[in-house]
């Protein structure tokens, strides 16, 4: 806990958040047998697919982010209860099903990436058309669903069968308008879910490599090949030229016992948590000093100001490279040094008034 956080800050008990029944796990928990998880590299980050692996990875160290959740993967046991989704989500899934055909696909990530390309193409073409206009809306106007979707929804309602293969979901109306009688007018409908949204755990490249190299408990699969450490390192370095610096910082703070998560939502590189995201707020925002661009005072003051408004402190981190070492060998990582500078904002008036 930093000096800024009051001691009355509510914390959640670790045991309440992750209730786990040990009988349901298929992995042996004997100390001598090491669990090796499997991650699939998709060009941007590493996905972990099996629900048991997801639960274990997130429970022991808060690695990764659920692909269909805000942070912690919320796994639904589909054998017992049907999934409850909102109407716009249901229409969106029907949209995808129409666009990408009858794959019944469980790998939604590839379709998502295709959608992303389509979206960027659309934004570029929109931008050229609306050059005169002042506002370019980065949210695509594709969000408005055509009304013929409603007809297909009715059609689907009438033709659903109760075979075990089809997944039944319960569709409830959107809750955008905060009406008082949302629950009174709630008319849930049973519909067939055409696309299975299987939740995956998304690991950032740094997390994945740390699990593989630092803890030795992940194997990375790319193009149906299992990669060894050097291949993995080369692959991850080739995609991001700042990967070495970021990984050194990640490894450094993980070794100190912090939980390190991505910090883009606070304008930094990483966030440091003492126990985990669901338990207490983050203590520090890590900002890695860039070796190419010189940091100017204004940007640093901006970071400090954001940190002040969110009750955190800025750790300015610099990675010192040893001389004459290429970035290709993960073995020479121990030669890198990390320098930390802690920045806080102290307002004399508040300090003096507290006496």
């Amino acid at each position, binding site marked *: 806990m930093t000096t800024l956080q009051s001691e009355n800050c509510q914390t959640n008990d670790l045991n309440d958040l992750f209730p786990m029944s040990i009988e349901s796990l298929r992995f042996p928990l004997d100390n001598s047998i090491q669990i090796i998880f499997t991650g699939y590299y998709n060009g941007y980050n590493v996905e972990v697919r099996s629900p048991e692996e997801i639960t274990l990875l997130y429970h022991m160290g808060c690695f990764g982010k659920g692909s269909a959740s805000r942070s912690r993967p919320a796994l639904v046991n589909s054998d017992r209860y049907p999934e409850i989704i909102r109407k716009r989500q249901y229409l969106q899934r029907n949209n995808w099903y129409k666009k990408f055909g009858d794959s019944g696909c469980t790998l939604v990530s590839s379709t998502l990436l295709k959608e992303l390309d389509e979206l960027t193409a659309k934004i570029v073409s929109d931008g050229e058309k609306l050059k005169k206009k002042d506002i370019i809306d980065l949210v695509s106007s594709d969000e408005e669903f055509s009304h013929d979707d409603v007809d297909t929804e009715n059609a689907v309602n009438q033709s659903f069968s109760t075979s075990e293969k089809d997944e039944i979901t319960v569709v409830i109306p959107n809750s955008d308008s905060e009406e008082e009688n949302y629950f009174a007018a709630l008319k849930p409908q049973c519909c067939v879910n055409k696309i299975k949204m299987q939740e995956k755990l998304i690991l950032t490249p740094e997390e994945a490599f740390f699990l593989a190299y630092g803890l030795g408990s992940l194997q990375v699969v790319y193009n149906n090949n299992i990669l060894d450490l050097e291949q993995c390192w080369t692959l991850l370095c080739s995609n991001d030229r700042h990967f070495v610096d970021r990984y050194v910082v990640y490894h450094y703070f993980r070794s100190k016992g912090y939980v390190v998560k991505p910090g883009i939502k606070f304008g930094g590189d990483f966030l440091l948590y003492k126990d985990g995201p669901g338990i207490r707020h983050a203590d520090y925002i890590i900002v890695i000093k860039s070796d190419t*661009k010189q940091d100017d005072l*204004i940007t640093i003051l901006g970071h400090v100001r954001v940190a002040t408004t969110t009750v955190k402190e800025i750790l300015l981190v610099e990675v010192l490279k040893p001389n004459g070492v290429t970035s290709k060998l993960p073995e020479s990582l121990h030669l890198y040094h990390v320098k930390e500078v802690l920045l806080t904002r102290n307002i004399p008036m508040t300090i003096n008034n507290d006496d």
Partner: protein
Amino acid sequence: MIPIYVEKGIGYLWNSEHWYILRTQHRICSAFVGSVPSFPRQNDFLGLPIALSSEETALLVEKRICELHEMPAEFCKYEPTEKDKELMEEFLKKVLEQQASALKKRKIEQLSQKIDIIVAGKKKNLINKGMSDANIDKDAMLEEEIKRIQDLDPDHTLVQLPQEMYRNIETSPVGLDVLRPNILEGDGAIKYSIFKDLWEKGYYVTSGSKFGCDYLIYPGDPVQFHASHMVRCVCNQENVFHPKSLVAFGRLSVAVNKYAVFAYRTQCARIAYQTLQWHDSMDS
């Protein structure tokens, strides 16, 4: 023409009337850097002199509102001569005399107003002592009271600490190149052109360093309004933005309720602006 005195690259102004003109007529809000004589030992309220940023100084010179002066080098090692000491003593004595006469005049006025009450009081006293019909002359009473007024003790006077130099000094005019940070070339020149453009649009422009930006824009005097926009100048258009600095800028603007604006110079040497806005929700 209002003079601005430059020392070590920063322009200063000591005259309070000039400061007022600059603020109300020319929309230049500078920063106070001195201490207030009547309010010592605190840092929340600072007083004259004002320090002007290089952009503000350059703008005032360009618009022919001010001219830059530099104090002579020997001025730093100023030691008062005998003549100077005599002048100063005369000055202080004059101040004392003026205060004494003003105070006396005020006391006489007060007495004249209250003389009736005093006379009535004295009459009552005499009646109590048994002596009635004693004629008390009002004017004589007044004269007596006035004589009893004490002279002003020098220890109880106010001493004026002059803010501005009260003597005439030979100064030498200087150009814009002495200002630091430099506004004639490089990033400073781009920032200056952005400052000038914003000023010509009618805003009050001040420094935004405490918000992590270059300038803050006010629709009116900063004393009456909150800043509406925070402007960050993009000087080097080749550099790639780190996503995290974009996020920090956007997030900050939401937290302090201002528009986040990037300003840059286009190829045809005009200034263009780009606002960064947090998109409220995904579906409309």
